[in-house]
């Protein structure tokens, strides 16, 4: 009788303990955690405005700190560089910023910006050019004035063109100093083609051929407000900021322009083995893959889940954790917004385990197309994606920049939510289906940058070896 009572009391206290939960009880890592509801995400209101000159604006107020940031994307890209003047786009973007304006020299701009702890930067990528501004809010007017001058009346001063060319040539002369850089560059050429605008890089002859007229021409072809999408975030009132922008960048003249469609990528699946011999290294840089796809592909959510499993649960756990063969190892089917990405697997391993590591990686690529992933793998990959989804909203910057990027590429503005909805539905059957559909492990291109005489087996054990020469073509002799 008494015993029963004690038991009851114990049960009662246990019950209380459970109710108050973590107040008293320590939980072990394997105990069940019941997570309370997450505080709601405070979605900021994004203002979307198009100025009369066609400049598209996304604005989000963020009053936590007294700064203002801006980022713009201009529809252009290094893919539009003429094949004899590769690097022209990059030089144009650089000298746009460094070459001064009708009102100030580039050096004066550098000084004025740094004096107010502000930055304005420009950059050319394959399929876009971007500009960034970061400034304390009290200096926004001055920064906007400079930005407007840069975009509307750039001077492209000769001495800064010369400087950009010296820098381009110096970079060419240094491009074989780091094996990671060699591997990335040459693998891209294997996938997109040696001459492809998606892989091309300048030679000395290209630098020599670029003139100021070419730069002006490139600028005049693309840099217009109706060809630009812009995100602005920070400590401002959105309406007032639109007025400011209207009074500055609103004066930037639009023009009739037609940006040509992006060059097509033609890819022929084939199995190749390629070597760049580097006698001065003790570790091989390995890259394996073929062409990838687009983010607009309806299978993109399933491919996302497959990538997480292939890269982490398979490649990382096998090559790194179990075998200790590499520090970095990965494998994923890459996708871009508007031109195909690369199915890209990579690792760096000591020369003596080169071929062994390649065989293991090929094995994992094959396995994911042949066997269903496990329930645990699927759950981990999906949980990781879905539970970390909130980090897509942890700053106003991320939210507004995403809107701008989607608008630039003509993607639906809720693209990410659609991907998330897709990921939620992905099954094991979906994963193997997309793996089978998109991966061709038997038709991959293999590139090794390393010291061949130290390899565990000759590379030819994987197939006929194509040796790639990376010698830099010397600059043309100056006229005597």
């Amino acid at each position: 009788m008494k015993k029963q009572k004690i038991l009851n009391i114990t049960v009662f206290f246990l019950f209380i303990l459970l109710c108050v939960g973590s107040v008293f009880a320590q939980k072990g890592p394997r105990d069940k955690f019941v997570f309370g509801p997450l505080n709601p995400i405070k979605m900021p209101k994004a203002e979307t405005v198009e100025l009369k000159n066609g400049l598209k604006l996304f604005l989000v107020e963020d009053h936590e700190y007294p700064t203002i940031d801006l980022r713009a994307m201009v529809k252009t890209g290094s893919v539009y560089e003429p094949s004899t003047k590769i690097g022209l786009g990059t030089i144009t973007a650089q000298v746009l910023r460094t070459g001064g304006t009708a009102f100030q020299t580039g050096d004066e701009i550098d000084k004025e910006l740094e004096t107010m702890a502000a930055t304005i930067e420009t950059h050319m990528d394959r399929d876009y050019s971007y500009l960034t501004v970061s400034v304390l809010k009290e200096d926004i007017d001055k920064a906007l004035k400079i930005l407007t001058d840069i975009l509307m009346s750039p001077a492209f001063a000769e001495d800064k063109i010369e400087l950009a060319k010296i820098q381009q040539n110096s970079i060419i002369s240094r491009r074989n100093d780091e094996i990671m850089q060699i591997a990335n560059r040459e693998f891209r050429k294997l996938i997109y083609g040696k001459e492809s605008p998606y892989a091309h890089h300048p030679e000395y002859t290209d630098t020599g051929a670029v003139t100021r007229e070419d730069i002006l021409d490139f600028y005049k072809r693309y840099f217009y407000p109706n060809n630009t999408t812009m995100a602005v975030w920070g400590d401002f009132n959105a309406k007032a900021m639109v007025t400011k922008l209207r009074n500055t960048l609103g004066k930037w003249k639009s023009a009739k322009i037609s940006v040509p469609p992006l060059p097509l990528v033609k890819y022929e699946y084939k199995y190749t083995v390629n070597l760049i011999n580097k006698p001065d290294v003790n570790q091989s840089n390995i890259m394996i893959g073929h062409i990838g796809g687009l983010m607009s592909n309806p299978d993109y959510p399933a491919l996302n889940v497959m990538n997480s499993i292939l890269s982490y649960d398979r490649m990382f756990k096998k090559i790194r954790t179990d075998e200790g063969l590499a520090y970095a190892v990965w494998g994923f089917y890459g996708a871009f917004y508007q031109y195909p990405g690369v199915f890209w697997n990579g690792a760096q391993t000591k020369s003596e385990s080169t071929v062994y590591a390649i065989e293991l990686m090929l094995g994992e690529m094959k396995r994911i197309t042949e066997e269903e992933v496990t329930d645990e793998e699927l759950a981990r990959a999906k949980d990781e994606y879905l539970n970390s989804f909130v980090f897509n909203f942890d700053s106003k910057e991320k939210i507004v920049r995403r809107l701008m990027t989607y608008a630039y590429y003509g993607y639906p503005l809720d693209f990410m939510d659609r991907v998330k909805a897709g990921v939620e539905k992905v099954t094991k059957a979906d994963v193997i289906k997309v793996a089978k559909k998109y991966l061709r492990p038997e038709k991959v291109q293999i590139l090794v940058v390393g010291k061949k005489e130290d390899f565990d087996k000759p590379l030819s054990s994987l197939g006929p070896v194509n040796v790639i020469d990376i010698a830099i073509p010397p600059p043309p002799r100056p006229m005597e």
Partner: protein
Amino acid sequence: MHRKRGFYLKLILSLAFIAVFTCFSLAQTFEAVKNQVKVHTLKNGMKFIVLERHDAPVVSFHVYADVGSANESYGITGISHLLEHMAFKGSKIVGTTDYEAEIKVLNELDALYDEIKKEKAKVKADAEKIKEMEEQFETLRLKAKEYVVTDEFVDMMSKEGDRQLNAYTSFDATQYIDSLPSNKLEFWMSMTSDRFLNPVFREFFKERDVVMEERRLGLETRPIGRLVEDFVATVFKAHPYHHHVIGHMSDLRNITRQDVEEYFRKYYGPSNLTVGIVGDVKAEEVFRMAELYFERIPSEPKPEPIRTKEPEQWGERRVTVEAISQPIIIVGYHRPAARHEDDAALEALANIIGQGRSSRLYQVLVKEKKVAIHVECLNGFPGNKFPNLIAFLAVPAQNHTSKECLELIDEEIGKIKEESVTPEDLTKFKRNAEKDILDQMKSNARMAALLTYADVVLGEWMLTFDQVQEIRAITEEDVKRVANTYLIKKHRTIGEVVPEK
């Protein structure tokens, strides 16, 4: 010409205005954030610094272990970083199917490893015996592996949405970072307290291999990596900044699991750990949970400070690395530790001479003389906790030499030593320093890192914000004085990557 002068005048006038205005508004911002920071030290000495930031339902964690490669001695170089890797291998609970059975095999494996090492060390080693033992070793290793749940710690953290699961080791410290949805605070407490209470360094030998690959990747196959290793070895003949964080290959090949356990016991006592937590949490709840989860870690004495100090340098030193590469040059001068009173003035010097497009060196070497494509001043290299370097790195332009770069760097240093800097230079520096802190404060993860760094290395977390006062107080005279005190040729070391013939 006329317009130009007008411009400068306007610029100078506007600067005076800006300086006053900024001091006011930014000072308020820093003060407001500072007042929200809350601190609690547990009975065992472990310190928690919390900043509530409720903008988004996420939280970042930063565990700062006050141990880096500078704490290592001969034979175990690289062990701080190796331990960091091992801290992802789980505990008595995480990463194993049966700890009791597993640990027996791990101990056998260690014993056998010692036997093999002993045999190999003999003048007349028995090759047959070694081969036999190595086979046995592989069998035992695979037996131990049967108990392992591969990467379970990483799996568990990433499943809950850890966007940032990572760690890094420097000359000064080992830092572990996580970012989780903010309703997972207790999960982090449980996982992390278990991680540092009962770690098990399983799969040790394979992870050592991974670290060796990391050494080849980051250091041995890269000209700049080789240069940094040899450069610090030349600059510091006595102080343990002498060896690179990654450690010597021969040490990595020989460090044992017991070495790592001993090192862990010595340096991972709770009083040597400082935690920064920034995000959508309540400080009181964090402290309550910290007591519940972390107070069970038994307290340990704070490890003895490093004894060795770098003696005065007797003359300029030079070191070269030959590589199939274009040239690179680095010039380093000794400077005191970050908590020294000259720190802010040195920051000003570094910024004015070599940080940014309008800095003296960039202006002259890159823009005017076009002898370099890149030049910058690295202040606080290779660490901050102990006396370190203010260094200048230059990447010569095509057809130009390191020597040309060095001559121009010397010229610019000479000018500052003689004439000091201008008031505009100083205003620029101060404003940039403040903007830089502000930009970092926008990120929970960076903020957590700043708070723990300031607390451990500078001595007080408040200095994250209060260092701004020191920065504001710097004068032209201060900059000139530190330039003359520290930029002494006799006390410098020059390191170069030289193209192999």
